[in-house]
């Protein structure tokens, strides 16, 4: 049973008593202005539903093209997977590895870990390997870059306009949705599971 009546600001080490927050409230550090606590909006069921949705979207855009290129009778398209493979063929496969890590591997692992943790959390228990999974999620957090990739898609569309006709596809909208989901869940409130499952 590891809880504490205190919370500590991670930016300046100020200590506060844990505040009682109501909906949409957050507590700011008096010293440095960082958010030290916020009310979390989602129940475990809701988080789980969103994680499953994120998983399906991710699977979809791994293989369904996010962009398409048309000229005369020829059509080229690129899914998440194609993008990574395109870099792998060139002289710089290390770059492909980095991209694969940031836009396929990290989001996929985040989704799988969240579903695993939340499925068990519904029954009020800690999933097997709870500690390891939570630590992995915390470590992965800065390295998922789907939203940057999304902006990249938009830039690419405009860049190719003119000589060629690049068109966004259903996949691009899926990617937009997915980025929002990942920011909303994996980005913020996962660590609260520590408190929900003592």
């Amino acid at each position, binding site marked *: 049973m*590891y*809880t*504490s009546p*205190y*919370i*500590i600001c*991670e*930016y*300046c*080490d*100020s*200590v506060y008593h844990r505040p009682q927050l109501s909906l949409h409230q957050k507590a700011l*550090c*008096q*010293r*440095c*202005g*960082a958010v030290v606590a916020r009310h979390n909006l989602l129940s475990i069921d809701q988080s789980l539903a969103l994680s499953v949705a994120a998983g399906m979207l991710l699977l979809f855009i791994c293989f369904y093209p996010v*962009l398409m*290129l048309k*000229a005369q009778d*020829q059509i*080229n*398209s*690129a899914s998440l997977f*194609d*993008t*990574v*493979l*395109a*870099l792998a063929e*060139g*002289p*710089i496969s*290390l*770059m*492909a590895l*980095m*991209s694969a890590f*940031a*836009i396929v591997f990290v989001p996929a692992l985040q989704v799988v870990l969240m579903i695993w943790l939340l499925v068990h959390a519904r029954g009020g228990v800690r999933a097997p390997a709870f500690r390891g999974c*939570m*630590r992995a999620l*915390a*470590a992965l957090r*800065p390295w998922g*870059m789907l939203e*940057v*990739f999304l*902006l*990249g*898609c938009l*830039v*690419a569309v*405009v*860049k*190719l306009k*003119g000589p060629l006709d*690049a068109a966004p596809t259903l996949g691009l909208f899926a990617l937009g949705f997915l980025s929002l989901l990942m920011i909303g869940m994996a980005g913020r409130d996962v*660590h609260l599971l520590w408190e929900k499952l003592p």
Partner: protein
Amino acid sequence: MTPPFAEQLNLRLCHCCRLACPADESAANCPRCGSPLHMRKPNAIARTWALMLAALVFYIPANVLPIMHTDALYRESSTTILGSVVTLWQGGAWDIAAIIFIASVGVPVTKFLVLGLLLITVQRGSLRSRRERTVLYRALELIGYWSMLDVFVAALLVSLVQFGVFGTIEPRLGILFFGLVVVLTMLAAQSFDPRLIWDTEPRNE
């Protein structure tokens, strides 16, 4: 009334699960998640300097070397990042030119400047505008990976424009260095400890 510091209450923050851990002699790891506990991140200043300088060195080839090679119907060319910004600007796509310029030049240069400023002020034990410097650090975390933008744009162009009537686009070495710069600056920002800004006495950890 100002809040106490963790050290005064004999507490330590666990960086992984954010538990306020009792800082006994025996407790080297967080009782809840098992992560190692530190008063401050170990060797924060030296590590951040090293990673930042490495990133700075890689930033040179990232800008000098071409990031992709275009072989269209009419012409063949290799473009650097700045080259592509200029081409876009002249072609009238000033908005995209601005986005790429901000992501590829603005963000990394800001990171170098802000990290440098934080490191130097912390080393000198400066007490001025500590709140503002903490805000700067949080901004640094926020812009973290956005300079990866051009890497992804290049990757998308490469995978879209291959063979046939479109010509070809191939990736070039510059893009690899660019990716390394992003990773190194992210690691540098992570290894810095913003709590050092608030320490009034120097620490030897």
